[in-house]
């Protein structure tokens, strides 16, 4: 498997690895994938009172493309509103990282991780309201 320069860069220097306290207000946590399938992504967003994503963290169990896809989306969601973040599509991720066809599922998983993190954030907001 030959990886693109961008995948290798994200893999070797992953951005925003880590996590936030999932119970903290404004934090949304999304965990997608399954160990048996070879990929699990955990994406966390920290949303300000203005609805803008201030910070993001990830941890990923998976191949180089999965790690790169999740690293990339942590960069992309920062500074976006949650609605804007939901507009990030897997095709954009796949294109940016030049993922080969067999690795498209990694980009789909990254998109799902954003959706799951936003859903968790909204659930918490709704709960508080």
């Amino acid at each position, binding site marked *: *498997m030959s*990886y693109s320069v961008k995948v290798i860069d994200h*893999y070797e220097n*992953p951005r925003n*690895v880590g*996590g936030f306290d999932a119970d903290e207000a404004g934090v949304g946590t999304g*965990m*997608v*994938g*399954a*160990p*048996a*399938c*070879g*990929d*699990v*992504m*955990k994406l966390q967003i920290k949303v300000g009172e203005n609805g803008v994503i201030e910070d993001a963290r990830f*941890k*990923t*169990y*998976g*191949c*180089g493309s*999965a*790690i790169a896809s999740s690293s990339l989306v942590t960069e992309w969601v920062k500074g976006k509103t949650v609605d804007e973040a939901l507009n990030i599509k897997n095709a954009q991720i796949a294109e940016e990282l030049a993922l080969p066809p*067999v690795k498209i*599922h990694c980009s*789909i*998983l990254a998109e*799902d991780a954003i959706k799951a993190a936003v859903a968790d954030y909204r659930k918490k907001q709704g709960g508080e309201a």
Partner: protein
Amino acid sequence: MHLPIYLDYSATTPVDPRVAKKMIPYLSGHFGNPASRSHSFGWTAEAAVEEARAEVAALVKADPKEIIWTSGATESDNLAIKGVAHFYGETKGRHLISVKTEHKAVLDTLRELERQGFRVTYLDVRENGLIDPETLKAALCDDTALVSVMLVNNEIGVIQPIAGIGDLCHERGIIFHVDAAQATGKVDIDLSALNVDLMSFSAHKTYGPKGIGALYVRKKPRVRLEAQMHGGGHERGFRSGTLATHQIVGMGEAFRLAREEMATENTRVRQLRDRLLQGIARMEAVQVNGDMTARVAHNLNVSFAYVEGESLMMALKDLAVSSGSACTSASLEPSYVLRALGRPDELAHSSIRFTLGRFTTEEEIDYAIGLLWQKVGKLRDMSPLWEMAQAGIDLDTVQWAAH
């Protein structure tokens, strides 16, 4: 020390320089066709072929007349299995037995015979990768024509108990084939004492050239085969085609060196393999796949839990190793061998096969150990599964969204 470090000797080995040296004259000066009976070019080539045949036979204590040249172990497996099925299908029966952890050269050949109407039983292995002779006994039928079991597994290096299996087959008049591609130069093979009827060999796993192999076909009692390659009736009709003299000379020399140096080489390689194992055994959540006793000296197959195999391979790009996960080959299936041991998929996904060899050094092993600590640690710091395991969460109780 050169990078990457080659730790994939079970995939293939370099040709030993002594082997290459012996092969070269047969490419130009001694180029004759060993089948040419009318001049010295042919006689010279024939003498070289027969000398090599005697060396191959000597390594496994067979009679040189029992050795048939082929293009490699895959062809030997095909010739043995299809040859027996087609010759004995009408007399002995149309049932064949093998094992789930066999090499694809055996499994795919059996699948083809299933398409032709043969019935095949694929035996399970125990958790340590070894087959239980009782399981085999229970699978034998009145119409079983052939049992095929590998001597040394290519992924986990376990040594199957072929002596006992051979005795079982012999009692029942069933033909027994053994794929020994991974075994030559690694374990002692004594065909004069074993109840084995057919045995496949490869040169390139034992410091010989690629593209040459052999099949042992027992003389007493005589085993018959239906040829799969027709042509000039070479190799007593078992396998037609002009003999590749230089390749054959290489295989002979490689097997001669294996016979002479096996004992000392295995001692040295075992020390290095054990050094590697000790170096990583202190790491948390590391598991060896396959029995450690009934195992060749040069193989170590390890699962690093909570990290994924392909990303580990990527991190270990300075090591030429194999992954138990087939992620790299488009399918996302983990190794069927590790699955047959009952390993959960995530451990099968995170396994690495290290196979050491003649040219592996202590310095290389120490470098590999250091790299493994560093990279496994980095990937675990990045792994949500590791984080959960550290927090005491049992991953089997988590409801995963399978995709």
